[in-house]
Every structure is written in C-alpha cells, then in structure tokens.
C-alpha cells in the first residue's frame, strides 16, 4: 500500500466518522433531508468564496459555504412558519433555487475561473493527497486531511460535551426546554455542525456522498439497535468500513471512489434492510404472518367456544364455509391448534380441550380489558408454538 493510498483511506474514514455523528441525530430528529438541502445549497457560498480567494481550500470558502448552509435552514424554517406550504415543500423550493444561483454564477464566470460543477458535486478523493499543506516548507500531509481532521475533532468534542443535552432534546424537546436546555440552541448547533461537516467533507468526497455518508450509516444502524450510543458506534463502523471497502473496490474497478463508497453503503443497507433481526423486511413479514395466524387461531377458538353445544358448527368442513377461510389457511390454523393441544378431533368434530377453554377464556378477558401486557404473558404461559 502506497503512502497516497493510506492517506486516501484515512481521509475517507475520517469523513465517514465526521458525517456519521451528526447524521445519527439528523435521522433520529427526522431531518435527514435537510442534509440534502444543505449539501446542494452550499454551492453559491463556495462559488462566491472562490471568486474572492481563488483557492478551493481556503478557510473563507468553508465559512461562506457553511453560512449558506445555515441560511438554507433559516429560509426553510421561515417559509414553513408562514404556513403557506409544508416543510418538505419548503425544503424542495429553497435548495434548488440556491443551487441554481450557484450554477449560474459558475457558468457566467466559468471562462476565467477553474471551478467545475462536477468536481463540486462529486468530489475527487483520488486527487486529495496531491494538495499538500506545507508549513515553513515542511510537508505535513494533505490539506483535506487537516480540514476534515479539525472538523472531526470539533464534532467529537461537542458530542462528548453535549451528549446528554443532545439526547434529551432529540427524544423529548418538551422535557429539554422544561429542564432549561434550549432545544433551539441544540437545533441550530446541530445544523451548523452539519453544514460545516458537509462543506469540509464535500471538498474531498462531493455533495452526494456527504448525504449518503450522513444518512445511510445512521439509518442502517437504526435498523439494528434502539440504543443511542450503540447506534452512534454502529454508524461509525458502517461508515468507516464502507470507506475502506469502497476505496479498494474503486481501485479494482477503476471508478470514482465516492461512487463506489456510496454503492457499498447501499449494499450494506440493503443487506441489513432485508435481514435485520427484529426490524428487517423478512423478520417483519414473518412476524406479520405469525400475527395473522395467531389472530386466526384465536378467532377459531372463540368460534368453537361459542358453539359448545352445536356439533354441526364444529365440523372440520364447516371451517371453510363459515369463517370463510381458504382451505390452506384453515388447515394450518387447525394444525396449529392441534399441535398446541388446544383442540381434539373426534370423527371430524372438533372439541376444545381444557387448555383451549382456559386460553379462550383469557383471550376474551384480554379483549374486554384490552391490556397489552396480558397477551404477551399468555403466549408464554400456554407454551404456544408459533405458526
């Protein structure tokens, strides 16, 4: 591994961490799309900064860009407060307008300045190691490494300093203000950090990857845990691993690094989305099917209980006709009830067992009182085999 390769991976990993931290909070606060808005609308800030300094990595550029990011948030909130349109429409109106201004500024002046929209949108990580920072003639590493390192350091410091406040204001803004922690300050603090991170990161990886790095690791982690600390940790892990795997796959395929990092993030998300233990698609579908069968079982048992004296109502064939179930479903419910010793079948007539009667009785109690805790308890006590 050459020096440049290590540096690229280091930058990518640091960008991933710097994005994952604010990203987690944004996802939890249902403000994920504000990153999309910010990452586009910093363009005019960057362009104006570039016209002033003619240097893509000057601090003024970052300040101006972050300012236009915060301006976006303020504008969106202002439009939203007028009540004329909903929040999402406000976001969708503000950032394309600012982005258009940026593009027009570039295209009006593109002839004499070197600023490519593609580069701004997509970034080029591969060139990052060539732009070195020298102090007193000594080479101390790539510029973007220093920029993103500083941002990361600030983010981590703020995270540790304000973890409690952030946590409370994220999950219960009312409680936070009652406790004297201003949710507004937290909100704008988070927005500022997100803007600065977006700006710092996008020089290296481009606007779109910033969105991906902010949202995807946090969303993936959110499917796996409900614990804020674990979620932060997991999203950092997902971010960094996608950075490193992404770099090597880009290396192998000879394609853009940011594109392949995003693709890896997408694959990780897809995998977790399908297979996450409790919240993944398959386990959700499985659980829904189980619940459907359980409800059917209950209906079936209640039906039996209601017709204790009428044998014709308890005939096996009757299930299809009366409860209007299809054959397969009727059979699976019947099997489940049999397996659980809820019923016995004699000459095609179904009888409730003692256990079945108790179960039905408690189920009716549950339906009448509607206490959630009881039904969970019941399933355990009757050793229900699930469908």
């Amino acid at each position: 591994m050459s020096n440049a390769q290590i540096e690229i991976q280091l930058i990518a990993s640091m960008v991933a961490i710097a994005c994952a931290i604010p990203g987690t909070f944004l996802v939890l606060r249902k403000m994920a799309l504000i990153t999309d808005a910010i990452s586009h609308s910093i363009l005019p800030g960057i362009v104006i900064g570039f016209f002033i300094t003619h240097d893509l990595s000057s601090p003024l550029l970052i300040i101006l860009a972050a300012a236009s990011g915060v301006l976006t948030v303020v504008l969106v909130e202002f439009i939203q407060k007028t009540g004329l349109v909903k929040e999402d429409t406000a976001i969708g109106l503000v950032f394309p307008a600012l982005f258009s201004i940026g593009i027009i500024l570039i295209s009006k002046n593109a002839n004499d300045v070197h600023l490519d929209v593609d580069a701004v949108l997509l970034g080029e990580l591969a060139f990052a190691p060539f732009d070195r920072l020298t102090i007193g003639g000594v080479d101390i590493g790539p510029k973007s490494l220093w920029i993103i390192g500083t941002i990361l350091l600030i983010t981590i410091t703020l995270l540790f300093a304000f973890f409690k406040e952030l946590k409370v204001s994220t999950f219960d803004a009312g409680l936070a203000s009652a406790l004297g922690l201003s949710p507004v300050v937290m909100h704008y603090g988070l927005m500022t950090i997100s803007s600065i991170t977006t700006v710092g990161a996008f020089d290296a990886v481009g606007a779109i990857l910033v969105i991906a790095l902010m949202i995807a690791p946090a969303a993936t982690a959110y499917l796996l845990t409900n614990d804020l600390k674990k979620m932060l940790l997991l999203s950092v892990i997902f971010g960094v691993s996608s950075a490193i795997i992404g770099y090597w796959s880009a290396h192998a395929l000879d394609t853009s690094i940011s594109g392949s990092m995003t693709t890896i993030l997408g694959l990780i998300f897809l995998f977790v989305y399908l297979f996450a233990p409790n919240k993944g698609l398959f386990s959700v579908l499985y659980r829904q099917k189980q619940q459907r069968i359980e409800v059917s079982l209950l209906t079936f048992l209640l039906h039996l209980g209601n017709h204790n004296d009428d044998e014709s109502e308890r005939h096996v064939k009757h299930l299809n006709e009366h409860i209007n179930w299809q054959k397969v479903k009727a059979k699976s419910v019947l099997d489940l009830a049999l397996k659980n010793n809820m019923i016995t079948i004699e000459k095609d007539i179904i009888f409730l067992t003692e256990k079945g009667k108790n179960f039905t009785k408690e189920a009716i109690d549950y339906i009448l009182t509607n206490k959630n805790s009881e039904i969970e308890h019941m399933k355990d006590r009757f050793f229900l085999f699930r469908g």
Partner: protein
Amino acid sequence: MDLIQYIDLVFTDYTLRTITLGTAVLGAICGMLGSFAVLRKQSLLGDAISHAALPGIAIAFLIIETKNSSVFLLGALISGLIGTFWIRGITRKTHLKSDTALGLILSLFFGFGMLLLTYIQKMPNANQAGLESYLFGQAATLLESDVWLMAIVTGISLIILLLFWKELKILLFDADYTKTLGFNTKFLDILITTFIVIAIVLGLQTVGVVLMSAMLLAPAAAARQWTNNLAVMVILAAIFGAFSGVLGTAISASNNNLSTGPVIVLVAGVFVLFSFIFSPGRGLLFREIRFRKNRSDLELHKTLSFMYNIAKTHEDTTHPHAIKILNNFQGFTRKSLQKLEDKDYVKINGNMWSMTASGYHTAANLYDQLIKEENE
C-alpha cells in the same frame, strides 16, 4: 435583441422553437402532476426519484452502448420506479421515517449511478458525452421527437387525470374515507405516483437531475397560494410551469453562458415568491395588511370603550372632557382620535372631546356588535 425580434425568432428558428415548446410542455406537465405531489406531501419524492433515475440511464447506456434518449428514458423510468417502491417499502415495513427513506434512496442510487458513469467514461467508446447532460440538464439537446414524446405523455396523463379525477381528488383529501367507499386506494396511489415519476423522468434531459424537484414543486406551490380549488390549482400550476419554461428559455437564450435549467428554476422561484407575497387570500402582504387593520380597529374600539366609561359617569353623555385624561391610556393616539371623529363618534372642540349620541350608542353595543358580526 428586443422582444419582437425574439418572438419572431421563436417561430422561425428550429432549435429555439423546439426548446421553447419543450420547456413549455414540460413545465405544464410538471405543474399539473406536481400539484398532486405537493398536496400529498410528497414534495421531495421528486428530488429522490430524479436522483434515483441516474443508474437506470447509465445501465441503459451499458446495454445498448449508444446514445438513444428514448431508451435512456425507459431506463430512468424503471430505476425511478424501483426507487419509489423501495421508499414505500422502507416507510411501510420498517420504523425508518420517510425523510430518511428519501435521503437514502436519493444518495445511494445517485452514488451507484455515478459509479456507473465513471465506469462508462473509461470505456473505449467515448460516446457518452450525452450522459453528462442528464446531471444538470441541457435543453439545447432537445429534439423535435423529444417534444412530441413529452406532448403525448402530457396528453395521456391529462386523460388519466380527467378519467380518475373524482377518485384522485377524494384520495388526496381523505384517504381513509376513499378506502371505506370501496375504491382501490393502492391502485390509485400507484397510478398517480407512476405519473409523477414519468413527469420527472421526462424533465431530466432538460433541467437535469438536481433541479428537477423544483420544476415539479415550484409551479404547484405558487398555484396553491391563489386558490383552494383543486381543478383551478392544477390548471394554474400548469400555466405557471409553462410560463417558467418559456420565460426561462427566453432569458437563457438571450444571454451567453446561461444554462436553461437553472434559469427556468429561478423563474419558477420568482413565481413562487410573488405568489407568497401578493396572493390576496394567503399572501404575506395582505395578511400583514389584514393584521394591521385588525389591530388598529381593536385600538379604536379600546379608545372608544374607554371614552364610553368616562362619558357614562355623566348624566349628559355628550358632556365635553379634556383630551388630557386620555393620555394615560395606551390605545389612544391623536390619529385614533381623528379617526373616531371621522366616524362621527366623538366631537373635538379645542382641547375637549365629547361623545356624540351615535358614538355612545356604538360604544354601548360594542361587544354586542362583535357578537352580531361573528354570527353573520
């Protein structure tokens, strides 16, 4: 170049005519379908879908290996639809919220698309120059056939809208009720979403991936301010969209180095801004005027009732009092006194004021009047 020359040019110059027509038709269809997106709170769906369409375009190129805009459109449509349904899947089946789902699909699909684009760039047949134009849009690449395609799609979606007008309208405002009435809400939902996706995909070539969402939203958001009637809103949005297209094209054509897409978006943005401020019903300006008027009415009433309380203590209610005693009262100003005199509620004589009979009557029934007005 002056206006008449330009209009003349629009009718004679093939390229300009094509672009103007194309952007106008595009603006109209976007405004029309965008109204539904805005009212269904799916505003940012457009942004997500337009980004999600990129890998479809790239894959279409990888398969046919030449530039063919209708095949690209098909690819974009397929990948846009996959993106849309994945977003629905995420929000329905997991606890992730719609904003996260939109952001995820947007960035992940776009990143994958960029991966493919950079891969294509390294391929030997460097025929891919056209692909880049989908990022930011290049209205200049519009051909007459593209415009025809847009017009046909607009026609079809218009027919569909008219056919399902009642159903879509009720779905828009009360989805649960629609379901209880026995309509197939899933079908209607998919129908309208599919047409929104089609509109977005059509616009990609002209205004590009990034700005497409504004094209969809801005005319509808502007139209929303002028009316509470869905039909009027859809028509207005279509008109606003078409005008943004034509004006944007005109501005960018008469200036060097101005790409059409951003200019159209900014023109549409101006429409929105204008509507936000000047619409009579909801606009900020008239709202502020109403607010001020209410406040000054209230102050007038306050002053009047204060005077009433003083006048009440005298047997002769028209007995003059010194203006000075009003000074401690907050609602009182010279102007409000003047206004009261104009309304013939009080008479001013030097430093004294006295209530007229009509003023006394009004003040006595001030709150009754308010109640009466409310009941009317």
